[in-house]
């Protein structure tokens, strides 16, 4: 009986109904009347809330294992099922030149590893030059950032799901300790990571798109994320200047954002890390209307834009095999990725649509980023 199973839902509902019936029958006959009533009232309330929580969990297959609820990643069994590199990658990439190839010297790697645990996460406000937005963000600076004031670092732009915010990657997915550990272990070079707020209108899901001003004035999330954020980071921090040094990633809605932003702006991003993402904009009550015509819908659907001619991109896609919806979305998009793009696909046996899966998926995604930087 898993946390997202129908049998658990039935058991809890039956227990709730049984306890309510028992309480009514025994209400004046408890041996210790007041304590019995107190216990019955409290137990019914707890069961009602548990029933609601299980129903919500079932609706999205969020947590699918009991260890997962307490954060354990045991049994996820991650497997890379596709690892496709393009031999012709550099020759077909009009943006990248030989001089852009990312290289770290052995001395730099040694400092990366020894200073890894001196990293910092700073809260900043990113003022958008194009949009005029001032939105919060968190920035991860590796321990070796302070060691050398001329060295530049690759940049990860990480988007949260919805609901979520600029703190989600650090607070929910323990980003700092994950990157520190991987850098200390030599699994990846030191990187800078920026986690920007993606919803210009607080409380409303932007889907990281530029909403049609006729229906949603003041929501230019795409311009803010793909132009303002990289420009701000590059002008304030020592990060790489080419698209190959900048990967956009995210989980759930953030995964959709990553795929969409990379495909809409392939001269800004070298690739996308899509964790349990989807590939068409979800327009619902949390977003409000976003587009007025079909051309805008199509232009923001990675499942369609991936077929258009674009500079070579690198994709890392992941999903849990026990979340059918995520797996189907991944499979459909994977089929459309052209051979000129790099592709790595990772699945886990369990994990659902939850932080448990994304902790494991993102670590594999960071290792993938290290691989494409080294190529």
């Amino acid at each position, binding site marked *: 009986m898993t946390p997202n199973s129908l049998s658990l839902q039935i058991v809890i509902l039956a227990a709730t109904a049984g306890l309510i019936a028992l309480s009514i029958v025994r209400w004046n006959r408890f041996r210790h009347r*007041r*304590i019995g*009533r*107190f216990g019955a*009232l*409290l137990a*019914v*309330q*707890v069961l*009602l*809330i548990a029933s*609601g*929580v299980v129903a919500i969990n079932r609706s999205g297959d969020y947590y699918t294992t009991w260890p997962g609820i307490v954060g354990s990643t045991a049994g996820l069994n991650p497997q890379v099922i596709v690892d496709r590199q393009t031999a012709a990658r550099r020759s077909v990439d009009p943006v990248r030149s030989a001089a852009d190839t990312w290289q770290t010297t052995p001395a730099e790697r040694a400092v990366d590893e020894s200073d890894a645990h001196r990293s910092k996460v700073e809260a900043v406000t990113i003022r958008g030059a194009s949009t005029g937005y001032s939105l919060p963000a968190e920035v991860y600076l590796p321990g070796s950032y302070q060691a050398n004031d001329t060295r530049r670092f690759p940049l990860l732009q990480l988007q949260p799901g*919805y*609901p*979520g*915010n600029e*703190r*989600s990657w650090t*607070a*929910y997915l323990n980003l700092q300790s994950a990157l520190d550990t991987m850098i200390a272990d030599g699994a990846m070079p030191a990187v800078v990571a920026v986690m920007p707020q993606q919803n210009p209108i*607080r*409380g*409303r*899901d932007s889907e990281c798109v530029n909403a049609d001003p006729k229906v949603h004035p003041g929501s230019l999330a795409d311009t803010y994320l793909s132009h303002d954020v990289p420009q701000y980071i590059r002008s304030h921090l020592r990060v790489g200047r080419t698209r190959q040094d900048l990967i956009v990633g995210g989980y759930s809605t953030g995964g959709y954002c990553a795929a969409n932003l990379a495909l809409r702006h392939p001269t800004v991003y070298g690739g996308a890390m899509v964790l349990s993402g989807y590939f068409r904009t979800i327009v619902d*009550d*949390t977003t409000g209307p976003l587009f007025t015509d079909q051309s805008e819908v199509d232009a923001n659907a990675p499942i369609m834009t991936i077929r258009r001619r674009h500079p070579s991109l690198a994709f890392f896609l992941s999903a849990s095999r026990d979340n059918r919806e995520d797996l189907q979305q991944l499979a459909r998009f994977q089929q459309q990725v052209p051979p000129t793009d790099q592709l790595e696909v990772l699945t886990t046996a369990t994990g659902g649509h939850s*932080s448990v899966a994304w902790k494991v998926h993102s670590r594999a995604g960071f290792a993938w980023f290290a691989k494409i930087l080294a190529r």
Partner: protein
Amino acid sequence: MTQFLQPSSVGLMCVAIVAAVALTGVTAFAWDRRGGWLLLRAAGPLLSCALLTLGAFIGINLITSLFQTWPEVWGYLR
């Protein structure tokens, strides 16, 4: 709004859970009383259930870091 009232406040979660348990206790112990206490029969369980839901919500939000402010919550529920 002070940090105490935010949806990721440990203090607010504790207050909500303690208040829910206390209200359930008062409701159970005063069930047979007459007069104004009768109001507790209807309002007590509903209010304590609402408080317990609030406590559970904040507890889950503390683990998942989904919401930082209440407007984000209203926006999601809208």
